[in-house]
């Protein structure tokens, strides 16, 4: 029982990352009709926004400490962050300690700008081209972005810990009346899941309850009619591209304490996120979220030792098996709309 609850928790957590990336992917597909293979790279760029922000907070002056020696026996050069001078040492330490949540404020404008520049500078030229061309150009863009990040940050992973208040684990078992110590779950992963749900809820609320969102939804349903009404739908769709980039970026920012990021992390998520979009139904936002969580849970169960022993290799193929079964029984995916990608 405890193992099942643990794997459901794991799956929800893993699935929330898939759902966030897939949500942005399907948003871009639903509005602009573009299959964006650079979306994983946006997730990665978000993570590196967090790294950059942490480095900005840690910008330091070098102070020579004559009492200590470096590896060559010379007096040790100690880095003292400028932030200590500006806010005092204790306040500076608190800011550095909370750099991951604070990086959200930094990442939102940066990611929106990156998204808008990407759309206006490159992707808009491919709207009328076949999907294969869109895939090639966005995949190429993803590789370019990866290489730029690798050039500046190196190939190895860079640790970016969560605030100390969230380091450690929560005894979930004791909280729900099971034996203490049987279901331990890290605080930050709980934070990540709650954050993902909040972000997904905000995107839905934005689309559902604002005039802007209403116009975007109308444009997704019937672009020509909306344009005939004199609304500049292109401009709104460009903004939605920026919003999708920001959603992927924020997913990346909050993911850095879970797995230290490197330049390749976007590619690791990209393929699974596409499977999530297809399983959820092309262009369906609730479908993307539901499929993300479902596939996350399935992947977690397939990683259990007992399951692997019974079905060797199942942990590597379960997501694709599930995709095959769902597409055979529901060809448009879980919540796919008629007419999308069917012309």
């Amino acid at each position, binding site marked *: 029982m405890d193992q099942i609850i643990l794997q459901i928790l794991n799956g929800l957590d893993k699935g929330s990352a898939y759902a966030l990336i897939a949500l942005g992917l399907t948003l871009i597909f639903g509005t602009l009709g573009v299959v964006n293979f650079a979306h994983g790279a946006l997730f990665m760029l978000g993570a590196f926004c967090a790294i950059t922000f942490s480095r900005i907070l840690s910008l330091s002056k070098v102070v020579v400490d004559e009492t200590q020696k470096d*590896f060559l026996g010379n007096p040790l050069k100690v880095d003292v962050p400028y932030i200590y001078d500006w806010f005092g040492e204790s306040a500076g330490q608190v800011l550095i300690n909370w750099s991951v949540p604070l990086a959200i404020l930094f990442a939102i404008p940066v990611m929106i700008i990156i998204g808008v520049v990407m759309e206006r500078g490159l992707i808009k030229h491919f709207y009328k081209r076949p999907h294969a061309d869109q895939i090639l150009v966005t995949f190429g863009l993803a590789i370019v972005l990866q290489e730029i990040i690798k050039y500046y940050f190196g190939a*190895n992973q860079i640790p970016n810990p969560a605030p100390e208040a969230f380091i450690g684990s929560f005894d979930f078992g004791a909280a729900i009346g099971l034996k203490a110590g049987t279901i331990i779950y890290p605080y930050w992963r709980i934070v990540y899941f709650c954050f993902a749900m909040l972000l997904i809820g905000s995107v839905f609320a934005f689309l559902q309850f604002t005039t802007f969102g209403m116009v975007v939804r109308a444009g997704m349903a019937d672009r020509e009619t909306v344009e005939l009404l004199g609304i500049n739908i292109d401009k709104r769709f460009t903004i939605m591209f920026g919003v999708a980039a920001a959603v992927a970026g924020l997913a990346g920012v909050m993911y850095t304490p*879970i797995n230290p990021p490197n330049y*390749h992390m976007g590619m*690791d998520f990209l393929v699974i996120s596409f499977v999530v979009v297809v399983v959820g139904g092309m262009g369906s936002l609730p479908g993307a979220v539901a499929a993300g969580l479902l596939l996350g849970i399935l992947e977690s169960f397939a990683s259990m030792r007992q399951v692997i022993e019974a079905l060797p290799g199942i942990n*590597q193929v379960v997501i694709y098996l599930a995709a095959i079964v769902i597409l055979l029984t529901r060809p448009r995916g879980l919540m796919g709309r008629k007419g999308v990608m069917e012309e």
Partner: protein
Amino acid sequence: MTKTKLTRRSVMQTGAVAGAGLAVPTILTAGSHSGFANAPTGSSVTLGFNVPQSGPYADEGADELRAYKLAVEHLNGEGDGGMLQTFSSKALDGTGILGKKVEYVTGDTQTKPDAARASARSMIEKDGAIMITGGSSSGVAVAVQALCQEAGIIFMAGLTHSNDTTGKDKKANGFRHFFNSYMTGAALAPVLADRYGSDRKAYHLTADYNWGYTTEEAVRNSTEALGWETVAAVKTPLSQTDFSSYVAPVLNSGADVLVLNHYGGNMVNSLTSAVEFGLRAAQANGKNFEIVVPLYSRLMAKGAGKNVAGIFGTTGWHWSLENTAGSRYAGTNAFVKSFGEKYGFPPSQAAHTCYCQTLLYADAVQRGGSFNPCSVVEALEGFEFDGMGNGPTLYRAEDHQCIKDVLVVRGKENPANDFDLLELVDVTPAEAVTFDPAIFGGELGSCNPGA
């Protein structure tokens, strides 16, 4: 003025001759006039440094390349000489190799066997490299070693830890200075039994590829021989990034030790997950729960940050070794000084093994008096040396594996900087990690001079 008359017959004859010429592999003809492939004829000799310059191990590759460049400088008599000052063999005198200035070409393995073979082939055929060295992966090392054997070129392996490189896939033209999985198990198990007791239950998470299998097998055999029990061993896909679903069940499995047979990004991520899930602070079977990482790389441990604190593993060499373990490890400080002054930070174990391999090759040529691969093989087989940072070392003739001390290290609780991540716990002497070369099978075959 004469006019050449082209007939169908002459065209066919010319075509047949040209075709036959092209069909002869250039590898067999390149520089083979002195009885061996790529014999240097001018005043210089070219070495081929085949390292990952892109892909996941690019940072290790960059450090390897720094070390190679430093070794070339020292061989050519530039800089302070580094380990040439401490190396027990005094054949090298800073005038290159056999009086020829050392030059080099580089290739990018991309940590992919196919790409590594292609870049090695290009360096051999186009650039006339007399020796190929490098690599930061066992898959790459085994593939390039086989290519060098066919081409009649010496291969001096870089960072490769699988038993297979000098085990079932060993070749007469290939040599490894780095240690292997078996030696890790033999060095680590006694320290683990000493610190954690002999009544322990281990849970292994193992990367699902060649190196993972040999490491799991080595650690299992060594720890079980000392009384540990293996509760479970789960293979994890090499492409896995989030290990939470593999780590979460460990605490309730009856195990009280988690062994992470992972390297690189896998290691960073699985260790991060294990610490995140509270395993470091947990109790199981009435004991403190422990985590073990059999093969440590300082460059990669950096990615795991504070999570490495207190965690045991092995490493081939560490820049602080001579200061902490004494003059037996002479050469360490000389190398760290050369490297540190040139680049501003201490070298990694990958840099160390690559630097040593270059000097060892040059020394073997010098002592043998020829660049002929068979002369190099003869000079290196059974060669005993010292002063290269690992203490007295033997290049064993039977499998071309260096037999030397292995370091057991632990992640520091409070590292002073990015380089100061590991502390030395114990040095297991070479005698304790020596193994019978026959246990892994494979045949060395005979050296191939390539002509």
